[in-house]
């Protein structure tokens, strides 16, 4: 169980209500722009802002917890936090274990990035973070899959020449491509949009967040937030 809390949010709003249970939001804290730790060591990013706003709309007190990607779902189902908001794509496999809200991003493309053009991603050596939809995709193509534990290492592996390309969410790669020598090679569409995940037995809570996401889509505030963090696709 990872119980690293980086900060509390929206506390003031519900402080008057006293005994309301806090909703614990689990994230990875290593996947900018969705979620990452800022210089102060707090959870920051698109999902941080989104989560706080959703909690406000649902009138809930929320806390942020970080957890390793590998065990993020088992820790949800065993009750160590109440929701996952960690750039998690909605997939059929995951649907069997947890329930998702509606997506709060459009089905976002994944992208290959490499150091030079002309890499054939169908046959090249491709890095991906272990246990992601991207690593499953690379394994199913003819490419040679190299799995790393963190997204950081996958990028470092391309830079060191250990692999030819990396496959990752495009939004994760955009700032890296902008600031380093990496360049985009190809895009693929994997999975649905990104949603919040809840325990299957927690329909009530999921309903609240689902409604909050719907209201943010309606009044356009979700689009503004997507814009701010330069995430592709609008509602």
């Amino acid at each position, binding site marked *: 169980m990872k119980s690293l*809390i980086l900060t509390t949010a929206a506390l003031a709003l519900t402080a008057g209500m006293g005994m309301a249970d806090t909703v614990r939001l689990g994230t990875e804290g290593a996947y900018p722009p969705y979620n990452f730790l800022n210089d102060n*060591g707090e959870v920051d990013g698109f999902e941080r802002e989104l989560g706080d706003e959703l909690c406000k709309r649902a009138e809930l007190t929320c806390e942020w917890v970080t957890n390793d990607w590998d065990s993020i779902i088992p820790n949800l189902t065993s*009750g160590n936090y109440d929701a996952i908001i960690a750039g998690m794509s909605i997939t059929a496999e995951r649907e069997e274990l947890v329930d998702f809200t509606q997506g709060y991003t459009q089905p976002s493309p994944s992208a290959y990035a490499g150091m030079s053009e002309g890499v054939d991603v169908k046959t090249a050596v491709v890095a991906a973070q272990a246990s992601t939809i991207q690593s499953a995709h690379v394994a199913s193509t003819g490419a040679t899959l190299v799995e790393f534990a963190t997204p950081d290492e996958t990028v470092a592996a391309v830079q060191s020449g250990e692999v030819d390309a990396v496959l990752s969410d495009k939004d994760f790669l955009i700032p890296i491509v902008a600031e380093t020598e990496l360049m985009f090679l190809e895009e693929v569409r994997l999975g649905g949009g990104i949603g919040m995940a809840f*325990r299957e037995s927690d329909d009530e809570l999921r309903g609240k967040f689902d409604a909050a996401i719907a209201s943010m889509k309606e009044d356009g505030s979700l689009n503004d937030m997507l814009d701010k963090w330069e995430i592709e696709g609008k509602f």
Partner: protein
Amino acid sequence: MRLHGKRPIIFSYCSDPSLLEGLKWLSCYLTTGKHMGFYVSFGTVLLLLAITAPAALAFGFGAAMLSRARLAPVSWIGKGYIAAVRGVPDIAFFLFFVIALDQGIEWLLHQARCPDWSDPIRQGNDFVVCDIAKMPLGTSPQWIHETYGFALAVLTFAIVFGAFAGNVLYGAMSSVPRAQIETAEAYGMTRRQAFWRILVPQMWVYALPGLSNLWMVLIKATPLLFLLGVEDIVYWARELGGSKMARFTDYPHGDWRMWYFLVLLVFYLAFTRVSEVVLARITLKLSHGQATVGGEAQRKAA
């Protein structure tokens, strides 16, 4: 332990790091909130060691006593625990044991506090207990969650290392010369008295080499703490060392993990070195007045 909200900036010139360079930049960089987390985590590791060592010793002592029990099934429990835990790589334990422990505790609480609960605890993939059986309670403040997580990590470490300590202590108890116990019995001590007054005080000198070794191993097992959900030095070294884009930080840099791990390396080397020196001194002290070669040599020298 945790720093909430905005941290005060330590050096006034740090407000706009993009204008800084050289040492000034570095001094600002090394005093960010994130780095404070890194420094605090060294304390976390030391605290964990300080609590785990006696806890593991207690587990080990219990296991050794069970193993020595005259009733066979009882001694099997002790021996089984020691053998099973030691036959398995500790990572394998760490990867599922904390969740198992957490669920076990909640299950027990659930049985005790919510006897009328009719829904199943396992609902499909979910583990659901009644609200007042949650550990910690849903209403608890964050620091209780953190303390509980830390306690689980300590308990897991203590259970794993307790098995090793149990093995060492069991060996040490059998190394105390029979004659010592027989003499105690001749003086009319009961089995219990002989155990506590004669065997236990004398066994430490036999146990010390094994326990020293175990202490070193315990130190070197702490990089796996992050598996147990404790934000330890490895967690922060990875987090801080990874390359940072200018969009997400005031201090962009490339892949600096190497330097952070170098700090960890120095920390561990220094720590094991200090431990070696201290343990050598304790050995010397404990040998004093003992019926061993070391003790005999001290007696002659004096």
